[in-house]
């Protein structure tokens, strides 16, 4: 790639001190350049350090050594230009769907007046097709709807990067497919840069421009990077027998279950 990287993860290490002078080297020398408008997924076995990497990008976890740059600015704290969609949605249960999003918008967009805030919130509720549920509380809607609200909240603050840690992991496969379609449609509309962690091979291929495959810990790092050369919009039905799709799928399966197979210990 000739264009200069949008999000640059530069020789990053992550070491967790374990007490009594011991430590656990979770990540070693992670290098990754992510382009603007790109959807990148990170796949790897459980415990390899995917969440750790994402949290460092979010600024929620410290970087032991190396640096992460977003548009050439060093990341060292959380901020609204890097919105996070958490695995368990983390909506505030005492606020309605509307209020959850409104709270984020009010905080980040203090340039908007009351009417503009309302329009802005409604625009993002619209985007995830949740107009009918806008006055419901998180406890009153399904898991898939909650996750959509989480996505709407993250997008409503118009971040430069959308970070998603297994956003659909807790959902059944039908709901999951539905949300994947939502995400692809929204990303085409908004042009967000998305980093998404997943355990799911099909999800990785379907969603991503590139799939980042991580080796196992300790000292996990990036093993291979796979380019997915499929045109958008992608339709899951048509991809079923698509050669490129099957090639990508095969490459990931090969990586995860042959080259870096994980044996339960």
């Amino acid at each position, binding site marked *: 790639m000739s264009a200069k990287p949008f999000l640059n993860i530069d020789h990053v290490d992550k070491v967790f001190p374990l007490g009594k002078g011991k430590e656990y080297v979770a990540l070693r020398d992670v290098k990754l350049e992510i382009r603007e408008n790109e959807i990148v997924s990170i796949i790897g076995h459980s415990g390899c350090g995917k969440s750790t990497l994402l949290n460092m990008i979010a600024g*929620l976890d410290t970087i032991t050594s190396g640096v992460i740059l977003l548009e050439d600015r060093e990341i060292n704290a959380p*901020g*609204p230009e890097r919105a*996070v969609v958490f695995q368990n949605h*983390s909506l*505030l*249960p*005492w606020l309605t769907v509307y209020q959850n999003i409104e709270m984020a918008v009010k905080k980040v967009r203090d340039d908007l007046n009351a009417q503009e805030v309302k329009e802005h919130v409604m625009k993002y509720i619209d985007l995830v097709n949740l107009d009918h549920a806008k006055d419901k509380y998180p*406890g009153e809607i399904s898991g898939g709807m909650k996750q959509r609200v989480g996505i709407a909240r993250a997008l409503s603050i118009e971040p430069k990067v959308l970070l998603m840690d297994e956003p659909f992991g807790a959902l059944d496969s039908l709901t999951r497919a539905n949300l994947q379609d939502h995400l692809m449609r929204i990303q085409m509309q908004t042009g967000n840069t998305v980093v998404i962690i997943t355990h799911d091979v099909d999800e990785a291929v379907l969603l991503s421009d590139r799939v980042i495959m991580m080796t196992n810990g300790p000292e996990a790092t990036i093993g291979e990077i796979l380019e997915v050369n499929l045109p958008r919009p992608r339709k899951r039905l048509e991809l079923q027998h698509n050669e490129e799709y099957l090639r990508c799928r095969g490459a990931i399966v090969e990586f995860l279950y042959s080259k870096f197979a994980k044996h339960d210990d």
Partner: protein
Amino acid sequence: MPFKWINAVALPILLFGVIIALWSTISEKIPGFPPPLEVWNELIVVLSDPFYNNGAGDQGIALQLLSSLKRVFGGFALAIAVGVPVGLLIGMSKSAQTAFNPYIQILKPVSPLAWLPLALFVFKDVDMTAIFVIFITSIWPIIINTALGVRSVSEDYLNVAKVLQLTPFERVFQIILPVAVPFIFTGMRLSLGIAWLVIVAAEMLTGGLGIGFWIWDEYNNLNYSHIIIGIILIGVVGYILDTIMGFIADYFDYRKRGRV
């Protein structure tokens, strides 16, 4: 289900009969112990004119209860005003927790009556003493539950606050308090229960006006049926206080409004 409903009424009535029978036996065995019927007749007399006022020492039962309640709410309000901020501080700061914890653990089990002489000596005023004793014994559940509430705020919510870069002030009011409020009300409910227990004992020692002193006074007057009436009324008022607090607590608890 009608069977359930009948049970709910019938069983307490059945037990009531047993209690009355036991009570009657006791009053036959102990000379001077007022039998149920006598207490019932006295109760009607006492309740028929609850607001009479014949000067300092001789006032109706409602005025006695009200004066006790006034002290209780004085001490209770003070306990909330101090306990909630202290609890928030302890919940949010590990250092504050380390600093306060030993004192909370040591002072919490101290009987209210142990504070009383000291308070009397310092304030030289009956009302102030009662209010202080209630304050110092009922503040602990508020502090402890508030801190517990703050600590039960999930890491996820705090991460949301971090990503949105909420100020500490916004974090307290938009994230921490909504989670902690139900816990705070649990603490307040326990605290009010303690306050109501304490006031009776405190008033017996300090004298003046109030349900505790009233009972003690009737003991000195050898009016034993009034002692039993006092006990029953304290129980009823305590139950009403607890129920009201329960309603208020549920009202402010987002989990009790059909949302999980």
